[in-house]
């Protein structure tokens, strides 16, 4: 084995030495490929594992935390929600349609592998500057890829987020979150047990696509990114639909001992993980693996990332019945091996041993690094000049800016209503999906403010969790748990590692304070091109529960003449605000602080008001500040509003500051809301009234909803239509 071949497989000298020690000899190419995939950053979390271990993962309602295919939480009535978020960043940049499509396919498999019927998908997307020549092509490809997969398989895409920043010019982010519902006592795990039990391969045939995808996803890009196109997989949502239905049909019986989808690192990763979790060995005959093309060697079969495949361990007497189910759905079904008591993965191909590796040493001895890290200096507040800035002109600009403009162009390309349980559609704070056949619902959101994380990783980490929690509360839900997708640059650079460490610290603090444990997640590192890293982007996917769908909220004003109440303190924090960046053109400063005690107090107040039926219209305040939140409520309803500034307030800071922990509610009488707030020691103030066809700020004029709506809706279609 030459040093060049070892380096091509992404293994360091130390890592290769460790492999020699584990095997007691030189590896062959198949073994080197397997070690390379298993020890890639993507599969082993070698840079982040020590820090991830600091996150809270438990609560009385958590059924399964991190480490399985997805997290599982109890949602009552014998049901569980199964959910996870995962990145498909590198492939989506190289081939946006297939990259995004297979990202959706992969995360759906993680959910139905555990026995859940998927009920919703959300996508958190980050693209480069709208002015970058590649951005339009990437947006178009990613959105059609997500829609092409989700629409066909028939699972609604109900939410997510989309942002633009030059930091993503060379590395876009495509993070897909899937959520499923299962019977709480019928969750399926990957732990392979029962020496002698058969190992079965089901789904699509194995081809030469996606070989070494996990290794690619663990390296930074250079000018040759295009040359990596053959490592991108090709998706087939129709086959995944068949696989989904066949798996759920078989899961209704007692045939399955363990099941694992073939995702990153394909058959290698699924076989080793199942064996490792069960403490068993596994013997596979690769001649029995269904292949799409002739002449595939063991290396290719083991490292292919062909999509829509599963590995299962069956009970001894269940083989024939299981085969009938998969054949009926027109899928391949092949017994490819058995569990053994050897503690080793032994592969044969063409009658010869192709690999023979001890399972535990390879999986458990995966490298773990305590990489050096340095703190991020918090930027000073820039000098700002607000002379001549009129609030409503600023609002119009913000509502028509790339980051705040309506995302209708995107979500109208996603079937967000299939399955006929979508109660709150895209465009609000959180999507709400009915638990089929009941009057309960789950609320779903994804959130992150990368510019806050870049300025102060710890504050940014706290804010991402707080905003997800707040969005669920605003929808009327009780927040239950989190899945996180940590997207960062090269962790071997101490300043990037410092961002990762700071964000994880902030996430941990917020999750602990809000009783919002992390139950699943994914880490995507090396998101950089030619040494330029993305903004630190720890996306938080949140899930909450509504016990009664009748007690839900909308962001749209319900009637004219209602009083508008702001809940939470408005200090006018302009640091890192969209107003500074997009209106004044002087971005900077520290991000808004997150007072977790206040966040919790304010949220519990709002949830009580919604559950008590006092509040039916509610919206959280986030990017763009208070006036943008009110504008979104007005546009969603077609009912205007008049807002009055409190005496002595700096108008621009009060209207556009991005202080955390705030909600806007609209009620026919503010009295009960203000009384409840006072009793809970929560700052709250009546700030205006709904009505008319314009948005008015007393003393600063008005803007018609028609004009504001035009600015808000026009940006995306105009951008995508091109120059």
């Amino acid at each position, binding site marked *: 084995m030459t040093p060049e071949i070892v380096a091509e497989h992404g293994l360091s000298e130390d890592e290769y030495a460790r492999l020699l020690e584990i095997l007691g000899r030189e590896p062959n190419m198949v073994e080197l490929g397997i070690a390379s995939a298993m020890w890639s950053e993507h599969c082993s979390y070698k840079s982040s594992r020590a820090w991830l271990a600091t996150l809270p993962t438990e609560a009385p309602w958590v059924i399964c935390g991190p480490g399985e295919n997805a997290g599982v939480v109890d949602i009552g009535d014998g049901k569980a929600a199964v959910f996870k978020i995962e990145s498909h960043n590198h492939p989506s940049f190289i081939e946006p349609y297939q990259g995004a499509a297979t990202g959706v396919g992969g995360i759906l498999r993680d959910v139905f592998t555990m026995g859940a019927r998927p009920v919703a998908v959300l996508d958190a997307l980050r693209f480069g500057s709208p002015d970058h020549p590649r951005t339009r092509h990437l947006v178009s490809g990613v959105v*059609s890829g997500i829609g092409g997969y989700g629409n066909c398989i028939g699972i609604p895409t109900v939410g997510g987020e989309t942002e633009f920043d030059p930091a993503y010019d060379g590395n876009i982010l495509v993070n897909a979150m899937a959520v499923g519902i299962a019977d709480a006592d019928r969750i399926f795990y990957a732990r392979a047990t029962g020496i002698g039990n058969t190992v079965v391969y089901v789904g699509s045939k194995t081809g030469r696509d996606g070989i070494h995808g996990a290794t690619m996803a663990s390296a930074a890009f250079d000018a040759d990114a295009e040359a990596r196109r053959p490592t991108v997989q090709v998706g087939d949502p129709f086959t995944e639909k068949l696989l989904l239905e066949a798996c759920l049909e078989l899961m209704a019986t007692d045939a399955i001992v363990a099941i694992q989808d073939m995702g990153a690192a394909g058959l290698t990763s699924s076989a080793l993980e199942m064996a490792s979790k069960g403490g068993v060995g596994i013997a596979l005959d690769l001649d029995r693996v269904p292949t799409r093309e002739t002449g595939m060697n063991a290396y290719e079969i083991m490292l292919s990332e062909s999509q829509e495949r599963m590995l299962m361990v069956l009970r001894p007497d269940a083989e024939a019945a299981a085969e009938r189910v998969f054949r009926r759905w027109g899928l391949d079904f092949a017994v490819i091996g058995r569990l053994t008591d050897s503690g080793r993965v032994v592969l044969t191909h063409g009658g010869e041993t192709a690999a023979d590796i001890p399972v535990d040493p390879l999986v458990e001895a995966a490298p773990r690094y305590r990489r050096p890290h340095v703190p991020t200096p918090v930027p000073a507040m820039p000098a700002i000049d607000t002379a001549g800035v009129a609030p409503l002109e600023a609002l119009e600009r913000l509502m028509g800016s790339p980051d705040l403009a309506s995302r209708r162009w995107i979500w109208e*390309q996603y*079937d967000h209503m299939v399955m006929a349980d979508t109660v709150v559609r895209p465009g609000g704070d959180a999507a709400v999906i009915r638990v089929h056949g009941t009057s309960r619902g789950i609320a779903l959101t994804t959130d992150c403010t990368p510019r806050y994380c870049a300025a102060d990783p710890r504050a940014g980490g706290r804010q991402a969790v707080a905003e997800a929690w707040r969005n669920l509360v605003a929808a009327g839900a009780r927040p239950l748990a989190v899945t996180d997708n940590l997207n960062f640059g090269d962790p071997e650079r101490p300043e990037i590692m410092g961002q990762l460490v700071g964000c994880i610290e902030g996430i941990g603090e917020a999750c602990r304070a809000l009783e919002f444990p992390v139950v699943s997640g994914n880490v995507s590192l090396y998101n950089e091109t030619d040494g330029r890293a993305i903004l630190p982007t720890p996306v938080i996917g949140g899930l909450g529960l509504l016990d009664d769908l009748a007690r839900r909220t909308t962001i749209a004003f319900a009637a004219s003449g209602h009083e508008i109440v702001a809940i939470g303190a408005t200090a006018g924090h302009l640091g890192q605000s969209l107003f500074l960046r997009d209106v004044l053109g002087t971005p900077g400063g520290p991000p808004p602080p997150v007072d977790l005690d206040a966040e919790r107090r304010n949220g519990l107040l709002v949830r009580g008001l919604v559950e008590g039926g006092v509040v039916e219209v509610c919206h959280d305040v986030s990017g763009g500040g208070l006036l943008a939140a009110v504008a979104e409520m007005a546009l969603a309803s077609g009912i205007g509003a008049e807002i009055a500034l409190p005496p002595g307030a700096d108008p621009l800071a009060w209207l556009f500051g991005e202080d955390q922990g705030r909600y806007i509610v609209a009620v026919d009488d503010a009295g009960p809301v203000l009384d409840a707030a006072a009793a809970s020691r929560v700052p709250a103030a009546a700030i205006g009234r709904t009505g008319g066809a314009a948005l008015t700020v007393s003393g600063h004029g008005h803007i018609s909803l028609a004009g504001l709506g035009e600015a808000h809706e026009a940006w995306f279609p105009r951008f995508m239509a091109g120059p």
Partner: protein
Amino acid sequence: MKTAVIVFPGSNCDRDSAVAVEAATGRAPAMVWHGEAALPPVDLIVIPGGFAYGDYLRSGAMAAHSPVMREVAAKARAGVAVLGICNGFQVLTEAGLLPGALMRNAGLRFICRDVALSVERDDTIFTRRYRAGATVTMPVAHNDGNYVADGETVARLEGEGLVAFRYRENPNGSTAAIAGILDPARRILGLMPHPERAADSVLGGTDGRALFEGLADSLAA
């Protein structure tokens, strides 16, 4: 009223249609697998939305030649009512049970949103609970909803009053804004909008419920 919902491997609105049928008739429909060569005795056959066999070739083209569709055609000839929604409409045109074809949307993008429809006639088994000329709202969700037929066919559809629903604002380029059509006997309806997704107030609309209730009135055994 007895109903069968046809289930192709890539159908994905089969459950949604079954829920709407059961809500209107009080009776759960029979779910009939695409490989079946025989249907149980029924008053209504629903071909639901989805991507019957993946539809990588042409929407509904393969489904039109499936074993179950021969039986659907025979039942239709015998006067059993047939409702094709979205992909079901595409299958009916490919199978020759309704004229014309559903092509790629004029905007070349998938469209999922509520649309306003005008009810063109209220004297059919499908539309008797509506009022002719009324505007109703239902969601569309399709890539290939652009109804196309030759001039002679369109003239015949219009002349014989076989257009059941028309878009108020044409979302997909359909000829004459046609959203749904009937066969000459008015026992087969194919439409792109999804009445089954607008049959429950918690989902934001109930205008589709009248279609299933009208069928229940008409076909009550």
